[in-house]
């Protein structure tokens, strides 16, 4: 893959079987504070460089910046041995993958996150047996409340935001045909439907904005790079679904990363200004036959598959002239195969793509039970498809009995729980935590702070995410007897 920093954040839906149980905030706190495999429970999250109120359009909105005191900070935040972050955001437990350089690694670290959360559930439930906690890797409660799955891609700061927007809008409106997780019904006062492709489409009400919680925009303008702001911007993508299916996650991240490269390289791309992106994203989500035309501002009409094909073709032309590495080749191949299948008959993808896997499962059940779309068990199936518990999750059951195709191995996922990626600054963060758990005072994406004794805190900035890698720091970390020695070599 063209080297790019990427990673994702997943908020989990949370429920208990006991209506008298704790509120969701306390339950989420209980959960993350029961993860048994943290290198240190004392590490603070360093909020110094965080400012989600800064807009790429050049202004800062008013609002309260998050600055919890030390005790609450520790309750809310867990820095993981794999370089990722486990935390409570609002009323949901949330997991961020460490920074990765390719879509397959992100996929593996997402799955490692599910494993971490499952273990939290298991351990927390031991304490309060009657309040068994259930987590869902989905994006909606079916009643108009949505929680997010966000993708992050570092892009070259010199690329004008307008050219990102111009191409990403048609791409995001249509990529749900392979990246949608499927949903029974409609919500947020949108036109009724039995089944739709995306969990999130109903919630998008505007094209561009800084908001993530109300009036959600297809393009989010948060300007918080967590890195050298002169060199990078972080594209914060809030428009996607959290996927269970490995193919969906992999192609979604891979195709998006490829398109970003084409935009950065100023490569000729199709001019596809949609007449009404907010309407189209919902129409595409409701078109499970994938035949409906999307209207462009200039009057032309394309189906979602055709739009995706135009971007894929542009990518093929680009890589005829540029170096093509193995991961990119693989993403292009799978992206193309999936579009071909979707065009022939989407139901062929009932082993690979979430919304099709879920639809097939529900249709089989309806046939068996001779029931219609109004049956309440179908909404239960929709929710339980995303249940993380091995004995209850429907996707998990399909995976266990090999009804779905995978791109990772259990071993890789297990490894990723305690080991950071080797090719980003996450390596330095995770490795320091493992080797010097007592000395790490605080961490964030772009810094790590050490307590070197005598009430002295030393900060190592990590503004360049491609540094702090295994090849640059392993020898030093392995040979160093103390954190002072490491800091000495970093010329602190």
């Amino acid at each position, binding site marked *: 893959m063209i080297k790019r920093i990427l990673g994702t954040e997943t*908020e989990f*839906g*949370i*429920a208990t079987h006991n*209506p008298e149980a704790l509120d*969701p905030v306390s339950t989420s706190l209980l959960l993350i504070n029961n993860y048994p495999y943290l290198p240190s429970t004392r590490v603070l999250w360093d909020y110094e460089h965080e400012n989600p109120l800064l807009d790429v359009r050049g202004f800062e909105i008013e609002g309260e910046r998050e600055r919890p005191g030390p005790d609450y900070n520790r309750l809310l935040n867990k820095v993981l041995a794999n370089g990722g972050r486990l935390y409570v*955001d*609002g*009323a*949901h437990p*949330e997991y961020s993958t460490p920074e990765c350089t390719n879509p397959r690694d992100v996929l593996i670290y997402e799955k490692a996150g599910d494993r971490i959360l499952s273990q939290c559930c298991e351990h927390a439930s031991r304490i309060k047996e009657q309040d068994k906690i259930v987590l869902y890797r989905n994006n*909606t*409660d*079916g*009643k108009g*409340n*949505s*929680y*997010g799955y*966000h993708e992050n891609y570092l892009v070259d700061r010199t690329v004008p935001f307008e050219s990102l927007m111009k191409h990403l809008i048609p791409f995001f409106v249509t990529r749900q045909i392979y990246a949608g997780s499927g949903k029974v019904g409609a919500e947020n006062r949108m036109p009724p439907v039995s089944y739709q492709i995306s969990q999130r489409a109903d919630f998008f009400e505007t094209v561009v904005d800084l908001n*993530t*919680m*109300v009036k959600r925009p297809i393009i989010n303008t948060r300007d918080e790079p967590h890195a050298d702001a002169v060199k990078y911007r972080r594209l914060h993508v*809030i428009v996607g679904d959290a996927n269970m299916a490995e193919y969906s996650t992999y192609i979604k991240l891979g195709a998006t990363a490829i398109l970003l490269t084409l935009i950065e390289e100023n490569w000729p791309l199709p001019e596809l200004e949609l007449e009404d992106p907010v309407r189209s994203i919902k129409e595409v989500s409701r078109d499970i036959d994938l035949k409906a035309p999307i209207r462009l501002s200039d009057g032309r009409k394309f189906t979602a598959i055709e739009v995706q094909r135009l971007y894929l073709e542009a990518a093929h032309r680009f*890589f*005829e002239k*540029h*170096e*093509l590495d193995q991961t990119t*080749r693989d993403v292009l191949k799978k992206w193309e195969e999936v579009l*071909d299948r979707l065009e022939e008959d989407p*139901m*062929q993808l*009932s*082993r690979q793509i979430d919304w099709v896997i879920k639809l*097939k*499962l529900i249709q*089989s*059940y309806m046939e*068996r039970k001779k029931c219609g779309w109004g049956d*309440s*068990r179908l*909404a*239960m*199936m929709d*929710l*339980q498809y995303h249940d993380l518990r091995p*004995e*209850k999750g*429907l996707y998990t*059951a*399909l995976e266990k*009995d090999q*009804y779905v195709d995978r791109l990772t191995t259990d071993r890789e996922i297990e490894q990723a729980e305690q080991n950071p990626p080797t090719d980003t600054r996450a390596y330095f963060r995770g490795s320091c935590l493992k080797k010097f758990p007592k000395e790490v005072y605080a961490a964030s994406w772009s810094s790590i702070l050490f307590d070197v004794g005598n009430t002295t805190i030393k900060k190592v900035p990590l503004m360049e995410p491609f540094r702090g890698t295994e090849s640059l720091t392993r020898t030093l970390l392995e040979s160093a007897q103390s954190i002072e020695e490491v800091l000495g070599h970093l010329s602190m």
Partner: protein
Amino acid sequence: MSKQEHKTDRKKESGKKEEETGTGSKSAEKGKKIKEDLDKLMDKIDDVLEENAEEFVKNYVQKGGE
């Protein structure tokens, strides 16, 4: 990328038609298998589904996040 790599790539593309037909029939077979297998899963599904599905779904209310 080098010219050579590029050529191999194109060759792959021209050989793709055959490949596709191959996968096509394989996926039809797979599809059939899935149908039979899913029947088995359907037998189990009522045991796995939460009791009082309607009530459970009704009570599943989340605070918006993000």
